[in-house]
């Protein structure tokens, strides 16, 4: 056994993020590590590399119990981490990046000739013949990644941690990376491979460790598990009693409000088509990295689309910024309430009316009476529990904060509301309430595009669901076809066996 992590526990304040997690890697093995957002993968890795320390548990590496105090220590101990965003110094040369912090020296100064020669030698092993004196930023992502790996190899790494290494690579670059991993494997270097692209896991990994809610829930040889089982184990089941009723119609009955045709930008969104009818809740499903949020951001013009069209009421839109989308009746409730949503120190009243302040002005001064009327209306309508409109929003529960954000958009009378993971971090009871609220808004004619990772939520609330996989809209499921099995197989991008 090269690495054995057992019984790892970790809490941040009251929040338990790892609960008896474990991870074992054999020498020369490539282990896949997967789990949804918040499953605890990155925390586990950070504990291994010394970025965090665990509360309880035991880590053995190369037969000795270890507890690394910093990333520098774990690197010296033989663990190299390659991050998604390549963590090297872009302005320094290739050779410098490989040897930063432990440059070969002569008379106390950097021996540049040897450094360059050594860099060439190590890169040649990966069949990479590049000018090592050029700044790293001159090279493409795959090459930069290879340099990061080369840095790890020259540190005598026995374990390579690859954290979503392929997220910014194209197919050819991925092939080059895999070749590198295989080369290292032949030398007995093990790897932990974190990725949401299932095909890649099956292509390169020997075994898979699946995490959910801070626990290690399954370990299996890659060849003994199907994609659908993998996804099911990863997502688990949310046992929530949603009572939201679905509309009778599900498909095509309502007039279409938004038509998205062959939308694309970069590698994250390759070709997405979907439609949202008036008064419908359209679901958008897919694994992490499938391009759900990215698609929504393109519709909302938060990012610029490169291909395809977004039509509202049959007319092609040409928004240049979210402000245009808002003016056209769109709203966007971000998945990250803390960063992109609430202003924590402001009151419920201020948070709710932030976006409509210009409309509430009378002679340049905010019309307090009108403002209060709106705030009170939505507090009552959405059932927001707060001591008064003046209570700071940070004191509210997650569910109530979410309602305030919904109200912020609703008071602008939108036609389409995009909600990204609307129930994330909200307790089960409040989840059902948010979904019920969305349903009643839809009944009043609002169209909703709901992005969700929780299958139960999509099954309970959506009129139809578009499933994305790797930037493609692979299936559209309507009314009674929205089942767990169908969603899972579409997310794993696999045809349902007949």
């Amino acid at each position: 056994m090269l690495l054995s992590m057992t019984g790892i526990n970790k809490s941040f304040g009251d929040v338990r993020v790892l609960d008896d997690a474990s991870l074992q890697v054999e020498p020369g093995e490539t282990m896949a590590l997967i789990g949804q957002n918040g499953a605890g993968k990155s925390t586990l890795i950070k504990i291994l590399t010394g970025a965090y320390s665990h509360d309880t548990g035991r880590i053995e590496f190369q037969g000795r119990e270890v507890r690394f105090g910093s990333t520098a220590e774990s690197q010296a101990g033989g663990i190299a981490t390659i991050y998604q965003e390549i963590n090297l110094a872009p302005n320094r040369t290739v050779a410098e990046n490989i040897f930063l912090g432990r440059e070969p020296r002569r008379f106390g100064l950097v021996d540049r000739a040897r450094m360059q020669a050594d860099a060439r030698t190590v890169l040649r092993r990966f069949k990479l013949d590049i000018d090592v004196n050029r700044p790293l930023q001159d090279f493409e992502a795959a090459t930069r990644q290879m340099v990061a790996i080369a840095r790890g190899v020259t540190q005598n790494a026995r374990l390579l941690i690859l954290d979503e290494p392929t997220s910014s690579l194209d197919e050819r670059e991925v092939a080059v990376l895999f070749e590198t991993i295989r080369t290292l494997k032949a030398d007995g270097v093990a790897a932990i491979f974190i990725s949401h692209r299932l095909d890649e896991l099956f292509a390169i990994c020997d075994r898979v460790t699946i995490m959910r809610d801070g626990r290690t829930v399954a370990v299996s040889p890659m060849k003994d598990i199907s994609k659908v089982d993998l996804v099911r184990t990863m997502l688990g089941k949310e046992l929530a009693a949603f009572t939201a009723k679905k509309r009778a119609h599900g498909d095509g009955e309502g007039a279409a409000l938004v038509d998205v045709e062959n939308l694309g930008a970069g590698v994250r969104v390759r070709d997405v088509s979907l439609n949202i009818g008036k008064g419908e809740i359209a679901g958008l499903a897919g694994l992490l990295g499938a391009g759900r949020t990215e698609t929504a951001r393109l519709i909302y013009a938060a990012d610029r689309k490169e291909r395809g069209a977004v039509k509202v009421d049959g007319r092609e839109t040409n928004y240049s910024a979210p402000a245009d989308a808002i003016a056209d009746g769109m709203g966007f409730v971000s998945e990250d309430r803390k960063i992109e949503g609430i202003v924590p120190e402001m009151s419920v009243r201020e948070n709710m009316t932030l976006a409509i302040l210009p409309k509430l002005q009378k002679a340049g001064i905010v019309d307090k009476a009108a403002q209060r009327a709106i705030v009170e209306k939505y507090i009552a309508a959405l059932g927001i529990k707060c001591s008064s409109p003046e209570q700071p929003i940070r004191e509210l529960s997650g569910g109530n904060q979410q309602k305030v954000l919904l109200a912020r958009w609703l008071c602008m009378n939108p036609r389409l509301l995009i909600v990204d993971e609307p129930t994330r971090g909200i307790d089960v009871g409040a989840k059902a309430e948010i979904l019920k609220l969305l349903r009643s808004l839809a009944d009043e004619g609002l169209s909703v595009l709901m992005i969700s990772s929780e299958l139960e939520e999509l099954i309970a609330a959506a009129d139809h669901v578009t499933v994305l996989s790797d930037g493609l809209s692979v299936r559209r499921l309507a009314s009674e076809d929205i089942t767990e099995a169908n969603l899972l197989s579409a997310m794993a991008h696999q045809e349902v066996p007949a």
Partner: protein
Amino acid sequence: MQESSHSNIVAALIPRSNLQLARLCVITVVFALLIFGALRYDNFLSSYNILSFLRYNSMFMLIALGMALVIMTGGIDLSVGGTAAMTSVVAALLSPYGWPAGLLGGMAAGLVVGIVNGLVVTRLRIQPFIATLAAMLATYGMALLLSGNQSVSASYDTAFVSIGQDDFLGFPIPAWIAIACYVVGWIALERHPVGRRILAVGDGEATAKLMGLKVGRTLLGVYATSGLLAGLAGVILAAQFGAGQPTEGVGWELFAISSVVVGGTLLSGGVGSIGATLAGAILLAMVFNILNFENGLGVISLSAYWQSVIRGAFLLVVVILQAKLMNGRSTR
């Protein structure tokens, strides 16, 4: 090996990075000004003008050197002017005890300020701008307190004033000091591992940490160095004018920042050159020198105020040029 060193020479002639382009720019402009001055003014290239130019401007070269190192890490040191003012007073007060007392005392005072800056930035995690702004106010205050708000005569009984006023091998001592510091600075940045560390920290602190580099120590080191060099500049100031100058040093930090920026060092850190910083400092000083000569010709008369305006315009042009070049590169 021969083949690669040959291609290195060829590559060095073609600017392929912003830094090289900026370096080429600043050196070209320095030479252009030199030629312009030599052709237009009789005594521009006289040994008197060159030596007094170097004697006076060595102080600015020293603080620009410290500033360059700080800015390469992505920080800034606003306290260098105040520090120089304070250490000039300290050095003058200590000068009766012999020139080493004045020299080392002034340098030590600067070093202390630099270390405090470094600790506030690394340990207390205060923004460098704020931390060194506080130090700037404090050091100006200290300078006025120590001197009783007037210049403090340095002792002429000891050899202290020689540090600023005498020559060694026919060359002003302050210029020797500046040259020595630049040589050491260049070796440290370009040839010693610490230089790689400084630039890597400026390229991204979090990244540098993940690469296992000692970020805190590096930052502490550059602020301490900047303080030490400002201290040295203060010593030279006191020695050159025979008095500690509590009200001098105002705006020196801006001169230093300008020199660094003109030299192609990015304010965001991660990219920089010692040689180009020196060229930047010489360039800005030379603009002044030329304006003085121009006034001497009697054709036009520009006040010091106008000189400052011209220098400001010059700086703006250079920075805009840099930004344009950068955009050109990133969109290619």
